[in-house]
């Protein structure tokens, strides 16, 4: 579904990504993890054509992201950028409704209304449709932004650190919705995560990066491994098992 070939990029002489290649199949939740400055957000924004690589190509659902017209690509790929300041006096329904813009270009039809309703239901926002964004908590607002990306109805959904500033309840809620997005709606979800344990708990695959290179790209169980994580983070990490789940102990 997503093919990344020999992508490099540098900003003002500092190399951010060097020769990254990666192939992600359709479906499932893929987590991009790594320490600060590993290049995970940069890689994601390149998949989302928000940033151009210096070298290399990226194709999403068969479309070269650099060469495809933005409005065509917007029907194959949705992105939720890192938290942006939003106008406070848009309603949840209006915000999610703008996710349908690539399809209706300003004239929403019945299909668009159905999609918006589905997205609002899927992200647990029923009852909040008419509320202004400024009256929501940070967690609810993130859910609304994710619902907007879902409503875009694209096979691929990319999310850049959606758990930023969320408490444990909302973080868990959001990850559960992403899981459902992949399982029930068959979307290919790629999400940049800060906390390795969220990735371990919810993702099918983990792509671990460090210093602009991919250190590991494998099913979750293989990456949730003491040796692999030590290579990723550069500090010793122990893995504990509880109820069959692997948890990285990285606090001390």
């Amino acid at each position, binding site marked *: 579904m997503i093919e990344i070939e020999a992508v490099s990029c540098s900003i003002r002489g500092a190399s951010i990504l060097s020769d990254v290649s990666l192939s992600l199949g359709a479906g499932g939740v893929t987590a991009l993890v790594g320490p600060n400055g590993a290049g995970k957000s940069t890689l994601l924004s390149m998949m989302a054509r928000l940033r151009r690589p210096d070298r290399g190509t990226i194709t999403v659902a068969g479309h070269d992201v650099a060469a495809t017209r*933005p409005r065509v690509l917007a029907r194959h790929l949705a992105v939720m950028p890192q938290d942006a300041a939003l106008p406070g006096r848009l309603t949840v329904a209006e915000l999610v409704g703008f996710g349908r813009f690539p399809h209706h270009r300003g004239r929403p039809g019945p299909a668009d209304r159905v999609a918006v309703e589905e997205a609002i239901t899927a992200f647990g926002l029923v009852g909040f449709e008419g509320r*202004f964004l400024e009256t929501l908590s940070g967690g609810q607002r993130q859910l609304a932004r994710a619902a907007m990306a879902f409503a875009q109805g694209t096979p691929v959904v990319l999310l850049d650190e959606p758990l930023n500033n969320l408490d444990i309840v909302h973080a868990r809620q959001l990850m559960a919705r992403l899981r459902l997005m992949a399982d029930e709606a068959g979307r290919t979800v790629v999400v940049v995560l800060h906390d390795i344990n969220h990735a371990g708990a919810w993702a099918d695959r983990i792509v671990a990066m460090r210093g602009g290179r991919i250190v590991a790209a494998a099913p979750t169980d293989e990456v949730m491994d003491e040796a692999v994580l030590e290579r990723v983070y550069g500090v010793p990490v122990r893995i504990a098992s509880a109820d069959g789940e692997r948890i990285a102990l990285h606090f001390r």
Partner: protein
Amino acid sequence: MTMAMERLGAPSPRPRSGGAPVVVLCGCLVLLSAAGVLAGVGGVPDRGLLLTSRLPRVLAAILTGAGLAVAGLIMQSLARNRFVEPMMAGTGQAAGLGILLATIAAPGASIMLKGLAGALAAFAGTAAFLFLVRRLPPSEPFLVPLLGIVYGGVLAAVATAIAWNADLMQFLETWFSGEMSGILAGRYELLWANAALLAASVFIADRLTILSLGRDAAEGLGVSFAAMLAAGLGLVCVIAAVTVVTVGIIPFVGLVVPAMASRLIGDNVRTVMPVVALGGAVLVLASDTLGRFIRFPYEVPVGTVLGVVGAFVFLAIILTRRG
């Protein structure tokens, strides 16, 4: 999360429809128009006075107000800041500078040509302003209008120096302070361009809201940030230039009207735009009418009236802001 788009006042938690405000504003507009047409120097007008002076003046106020308010709304989406508007961010001043230079280069040029020169200068001046805005920290929204006021002052100083040297100060005054006493049939028709531009801005309303979600979100929805920026800038600059060349700079309309409309209705550009246009028309027409009668039979320029009224309202808006 820091919100660069500031919250205003104590607004309703849920949106209201634009229906009621539209009806109220239309009523105000009708009453004010009737007053503006029927009363004034010369008493109740005969047909000649009506068609050459009274009616053009009322129409000019409506077109100017609607244009300026919508231009402010567009500019706020482009700059992603609630506190900017073209007449207080260098757009109007750059337009005045362009018109001045055109007047010096070709003294006999038509008002159309001068307006065009003004629009081109406004485009360059506003693009430069938006470039500077992007270098300000988004967490400090008040810096943007402050930068705009000072930037406009710098452009105005350049224009003053040039006009002083060319002995065109009286002309400069007509462009830099909004006044409608000179509006007569045959000398305001360029303002109808505002009506056309308003119609055009309805078409990009949704894209403007998307732009206010941020550059990445807009690109993600297939809306080209650069193309929208150019289109929005074009609309703002032509409205500004047309207004400056016919009426002169009128401050605050583009600031206070969208702010009030946002409190009342919300931030969806499409739903708020009719209220903004009507509100701007009512505000400018009311201010001009006030200016005509406060020292009857003499006149106080509409730009001066709005300098006072607008500054009061704007101060109230920024000082009573929540959070």
